[in-house]
């Protein structure tokens, strides 16, 4: 997030796109609703009528996969209505002329038709967003999990820069990070193309600094991304894997391919707190300590590095992952694997990653954490980003064009399936929440949201079992008659191993971000008849 979570409360306009915020980020959702209580306008872009969409002043219920068309239409309207922030554009951005010329060539009626939203509604939303100087955009995986995910994000950035809604408090572009430490895992470079603190793998000065501290040569070649590894297949390039605290056998797209890869590995080691679907394929399974049994830091969505404290010693014969990694390091003869505490590890991180330069345990303990960038011990941390300049200097407008999703509904597969985190009570592959009695009681089984008109046509009643097919697989799932989805669109979560919905999803990815298209896949629905 470029903003802090608390800032959202004082924004005047909140544009939420591709995020079921009250379900997936309840505290951020709470801040958004508080802002609305204080008089802020809420605009929600989502194909579904989620809880937050129901609270919206304007809900833009677009056809899945048409975000770029919608945002281009909004920008064109902003230009036509003379609402662009010319001063900001001339001082802080480049490439505006190209964008302007591109937008002027677009046909608004055509764009509205693509999105299946009424043009007047788009106009109203665009004007509300552009007229305020305290407009915030929050987006989540509904924007990124498309083959054009990177372009979707670029379109969102264009919209914010066009109206100057970036450099100030209460205005910005906020990707909401999913897992408790997905921000930190990225910061620490558990990524194939960068070094800790998003430093370049190729930069000779950076490499030299890392090599002098780590005392080993760094590999040069950019690594493979997650799906490139889990989809490597039977005779693919990956022969052995170590998986720590992840469950690709339930969370990744096109699961049959993942299974094929995992079964055919020469060796698989998994470290986890439960025997997950992935761990069941392993040669070696390590029992890891849970969050309550270890210390360390995690970084939340607003870049706040926070201290976790150990509440109890590891239960049974479990050990923290840090210990497991260092033990493996010793056995492999890897240098620099002899830290005595998490604080010592953080000292090395702060030495090598400038954005974490001032993160020291004594400071983190005092302040409920610090927000990066925090380059040195005396820096107070950074509440919001891009205050005087963007990371690259000037903000660049990039032209983005609508492209159709990789799979279209057909006669044989007439429905569009959208997947996501569907329940307030479950999390991701639900390894933790399904071991929590009260959460299971509240939401015991997977559901497929189907519009009531579609249910009538197919003669499906609420709670009845249906069979869901795509080109890649079949699952059986309980139907939920609803008006949350539009006719022709259905939605399911991927929380339940009994309904591995990702056996259906497409394995086409955004070529730039390698993000899979979880949000659009063509399916057929059939009622299950019990004879």
């Amino acid at each position: 997030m470029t903003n802090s979570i608390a800032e959202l409360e004082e924004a005047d306009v909140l544009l939420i796109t591709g995020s079921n915020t009250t379900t997936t980020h309840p505290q951020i959702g709470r801040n958004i609703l508080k802002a609305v209580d204080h008089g802020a306008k809420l605009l929600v872009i989502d194909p579904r009528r989620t809880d937050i969409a129901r609270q919206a002043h304007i809900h833009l219920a677009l056809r899945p996969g048409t975000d770029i068309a919608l945002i281009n239409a909004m920008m064109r309207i902003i230009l036509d209505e003379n609402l662009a922030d010319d001063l900001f554009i001339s001082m802080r951005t480049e490439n505006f002329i190209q964008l302007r010329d591109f937008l002027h060539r677009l046909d608004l009626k055509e764009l509205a038709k693509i999105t299946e939203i009424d043009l007047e509604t788009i106009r109203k939303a665009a004007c509300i967003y552009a007229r305020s100087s305290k407009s915030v955009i929050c987006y989540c995986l509904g924007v990124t999990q498309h083959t054009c995910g990177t372009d979707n994000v670029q379109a969102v950035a264009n919209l914010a820069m066009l109206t100057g809604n970036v450099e100030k408090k209460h205005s910005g572009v906020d990707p909401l990070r999913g897992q408790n430490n997905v921000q930190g895992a990225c910061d620490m470079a558990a990524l194939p193309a960068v070094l800790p603190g998003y430093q370049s793998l190729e930069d000779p000065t950076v490499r030299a600094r890392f090599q002098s501290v780590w005392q080993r040569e760094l590999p040069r070649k950019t690594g493979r991304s997650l799906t490139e590894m889990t989809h490597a297949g039977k005779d693919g390039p990956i022969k052995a894997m170590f998986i720590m605290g992840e469950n690709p056998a339930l969370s990744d797209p096109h699961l049959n391919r993942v299974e094929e890869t995992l079964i055919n590995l020469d060796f698989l080691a998994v470290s986890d707190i439960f025997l997950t679907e992935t761990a069941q394929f392993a040669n070696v399974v390590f029992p890891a300590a849970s969050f309550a049994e270890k210390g360390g830091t995690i970084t939340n969505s607003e870049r706040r590095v926070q201290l976790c404290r150990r509440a109890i010693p590891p239960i049974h014969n479990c050990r923290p992952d840090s210990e497991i990694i260092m033990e493996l390091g010793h056995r492999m003869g890897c240098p620099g694997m002899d830290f005595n505490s998490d604080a010592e590890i953080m000292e090395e991180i702060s030495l090598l990653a400038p954005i974490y330069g001032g993160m020291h345990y004594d400071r983190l303990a005092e302040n409920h954490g610090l927000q990066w960038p925090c380059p040195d011990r005396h820096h107070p941390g950074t509440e919001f980003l891009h205050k005087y300049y963007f990371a690259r200097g000037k903000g660049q407008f990039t032209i983005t064009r609508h492209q159709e999703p990789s799979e279209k509904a057909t006669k044989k597969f007439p429905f569009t399936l959208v997947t996501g985190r569907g329940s307030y009570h479950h999390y991701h592959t639900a390894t933790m929440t399904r071991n929590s009695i009260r959460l299971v009681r509240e939401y015991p089984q997977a559901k497929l949201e189907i519009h009531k008109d579609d249910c009538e046509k197919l003669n499906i009643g609420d709670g009845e079992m249906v069979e869901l097919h795509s080109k890649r697989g079949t699952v059986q799932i309980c139907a939920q008659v609803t008006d949350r989805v539009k006719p022709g669109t259905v939605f399911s979560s991927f929380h339940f191993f009994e309904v591995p919905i990702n056996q259906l999803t497409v394995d086409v990815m955004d070529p730039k971000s390698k993000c899979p298209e979880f949000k659009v896949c063509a399916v057929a629905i059939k009622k299950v008849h019990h004879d």
Partner: protein
Amino acid sequence: MQDILTICNYCGCGCGVYLSVTHNHVVGSYPSRNHPISRGNLCSKGWHLHEFVHSNKRLTDPLLRKNGVLEKVSWDEALDTTSKALMTAKEKTGPDSIGVLSSAKCTNEENYLLQKLTRIGLGTNNIDHCARL
């Protein structure tokens, strides 16, 4: 009873939460009032954060597959087998034939260590996690 301030393990909001501990058992969770995110509130997952910690489905010991079945083994045997298998793969099929998945549920320190081990111990940049899922 002792209350320990830590951070919720579920979503990216990062609420400050107290875990109530008796006799090395986590028996409850409640929000911090002063914490800038939680400010006295939690969601239903946060209020039940402690429940999975002592689940009887938790893994208790290292497991090693012998004759197709996962069997309990010592830490040394599990660690030795893993380091040998990974080093063999490195020698036989090259560092880039090894893939490592780190975790968005683990700490910064653990992620840092694992990418360091992957890059200089195994000699590959094949490391990623579920940021896109």
